[in-house]
């Protein structure tokens, strides 16, 4: 451990704001990227399944 207490860990000397903002931003961007990628796939299947149902209905009528 490079720190003696949690308070020291959060403070990062006097550089807490710089270190934590960097890590916060990076992990936020990564999370958004992963989420967007999953959403892309979900949206594709939702749209295509609807399309499929529409085609089946047309076929029946």
């Amino acid at each position, binding site marked *: 451990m490079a720190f003696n207490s949690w308070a020291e860990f959060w403070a*990062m000397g006097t*550089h807490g704001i*710089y*270190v934590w903002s960097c890590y916060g931003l990076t992990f936020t961007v990564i999370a958004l990227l992963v989420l967007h*990628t999953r959403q892309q796939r979900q949206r*594709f299947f939702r749209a295509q*399944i609807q399309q*499929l149902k529409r085609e089946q209905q047309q076929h029946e009528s």
Partner: protein
Amino acid sequence: MSFIKRWWQLFEQTVSPKYFYRISERFIPWLTLLATLLISIATVWGLAFAPADYLQGNSYRIIFIHVPAASLAMSAYFLLAICGVISLVWKVKTAEMVARAVAPIGALFCFLALVTGGIWGKPTWGTYWVWDARLTSMLVLLFLYMGVIALYNAYESSATGAKAAAILAVVGIVNLPIIKYSVVWWNTLHQGATFTLTQKPKMPTEMWLPLLLMLLGFYCLFGLLTILRTRNVILERERRSQWVRELVKAEAAKRGANRGL
């Protein structure tokens, strides 16, 4: 000649979007596991256990994300340019799709490298930004990424857009050696490379080992995101083909079954 033709057909088959879609599925769980493990270990190690720098104190801990992000931004651009060449010369569809998937990932990591660098610069150099060679060439890389992404969406026919984007990506590759050697060629505030292939790092092991783990973790994450996003592009572009329609039917059956439970 028929021999060459058969080989070419075999080659075309292995680089087809359908094949890529099928084969890439196997890598997803492994890359997810590796990326999660490596990034979590490196983050905890780098933030809490690595010793403070004797000169910079704790602000140097930004290195554990700044260097991997910057390295990834450059590697992703290299991949983008390679895919550009392949799609321009051999008209391989999959290469174009990979490029389309990689561009936004690379752009975001380039953005992260610039912002974390700026934040790190404040306590270390006393300023968020200077117009020096390394920082400026990295900003140019971000603009190149944005140009490539814009070109993809600038034309009504996606084929024309992809061609224009590929050309820009290939031309823009001259920027990569400029970024790499900017710290050598010009007087700059920015420090030299942390890792080189030929020399032992100048930092102690407790510092460079977590950095190396984070670097590997970021590359695994990049591989994972590239595969997932390329698969999305493939689905979208091949949605009228028989095999994607089968996939959609299977997915519809699965969802219908889940709803029935």
